[in-house]
């Protein structure tokens, strides 16, 4: 589904990604972790072309993301993305947030889009918030709306860029619950997160990144059982102690 082949990226002279290679199969849940500044958010943003990369190739569902002839908007419409800061559109109501791209990008009718939006809001338990504006919702609620907004496009895969990092602790679980449910339904997911509990529960594979490199790419059992690299072991010991 998602193939990342030998990606390198520079900001000016500073190399942020170095020869990153990995893949996410259909129905697979892959968690990307690592210390801050390790390039994991940058990597996931390369997958739908939000960040350009200078070398290597990313193939999503048979289409090369970096290729000049690729219709990026069309490809992006098929990949859902959830951001650290939710990025709901503050000038639009919750329902409009969910229907805008359905109507403008997929060409659905307003009724169809609204019905779909309502179904997804019910699914994340926020149906009664439909007429409100993002600013009136809590962070956890906003992030659940953001997930529903991405799902409204019927994506073939979902990308999560630190979806719980900006949340107050008591709101993290309501978002993770939605994600766990999604994973159990067989959604293809690539998730940048520090939530190792989530990784243990639903991930198939864990990618560990440090200094722009993929240091470890292992099945969940192997990663948590006995990380092969010292850096990954060190990272795990730091975040699992609490």
């Amino acid at each position: 589904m998602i193939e990342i082949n030998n990606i390198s990226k520079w900001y000016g002279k500073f190399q942020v990604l170095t020869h990153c290679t990995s893949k996410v199969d259909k129905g697979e849940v892959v968690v990307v972790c690592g210390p801050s500044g390790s390039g994991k958010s940058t990597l996931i943003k390369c997958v739908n072309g939000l960040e350009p990369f200078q070398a290597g190739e990313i193939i999503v569902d048979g289409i090369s993301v970096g290729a000049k002839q690729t219709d990026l908007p069309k490809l992006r419409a098929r990949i859902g993305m959830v951001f650290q800061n939710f990025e709901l559109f503050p000038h639009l109501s919750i329902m409009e947030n969910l229907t805008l791209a359905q109507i403008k990008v997929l060409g659905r009718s307003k009724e169809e889009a609204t019905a779909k939006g309502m179904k997804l809001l019910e699914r994340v338990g926020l149906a009664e918030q439909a007429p409100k504006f993002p600013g009136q919702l809590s962070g956890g609620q906003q992030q659940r709306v953001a997930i529903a907004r991405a799902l409204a496009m019927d994506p073939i895969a979902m990308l999560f860029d630190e979806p719980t990092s900006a949340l107050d602790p008591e709101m993290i679980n309501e978002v993770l619950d939605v994600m766990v449910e999604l994973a159990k339904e067989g959604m293809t997911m690539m998730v940048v997160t520090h939530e190792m509990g989530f990784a243990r529960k639903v991930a198939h594979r864990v990618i560990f990144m440090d200094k722009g490199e993929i240091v470890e790419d292992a099945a969940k059992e192997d990663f948590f059982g006995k990380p092969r690299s010292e850096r990954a072991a060190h990272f795990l010991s730091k975040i699992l102690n609490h």
Partner: protein
Amino acid sequence: MTGDLDFEIVGHTLPYLITGLQYTVQLTLIAALGGILFGTLLAMARLSSMKPLAMLAAGYVNLMRSIPLLLVIFWFYFLLPVIIQSVMGWERPPQIGADRSAYITFIMFEAAYFCEIMRAGIQSIAKGQVGAANALGLNYWQSMRLIVLPQAFRNMLPVLLTQTIILFQDVSLVSLLNVTDFVGAAVKVAQRDSRVVEMYAFVAVVYFVICYCLSILVKQLQQRIAIIR
């Protein structure tokens, strides 16, 4: 003109003055709308990743903002027809007319100022908003039109209105092209009836009342927007 003032002249010529005021308001509104539209396009050009386009827009804005408005008005009115004539190789300069020239001048001139306001507005929208719009499959124009510009416009509304109040005052310069705007009408009456003090005092009071009231409204609007945000 003698020492004794006679404000009855204002009453007698009021319909004529109101026609002038209507023209001033109309020119202000059209120039503001046209200027915001053109200025927004300029702002998008200035922020474009296409370097030549960005430089061209920046050059235009800096040029307009470095020349006194009066000079720009004269340029468009007196020199532009001659330039068009020589470029097109016509026998006579095209008849643009003071009226049309005034509209064109103010739209072009104000666009430079509205551009800078909209540029600040666009930059005030977090980059993540564009990212989210793009991630949903919206293209550049869609994300600008549906996501970035509505928010930028809302954030900048008080500044845009303040600039429009300035424009409302600046429009009085067209009276120098012999256009009968509010000031132009007053000048004509003042000269015909030798009532300079009365007419100029009346015009000043009207300008003051309108602009002061509008500025209070803008201040209230500003506070309301601050609460919403």
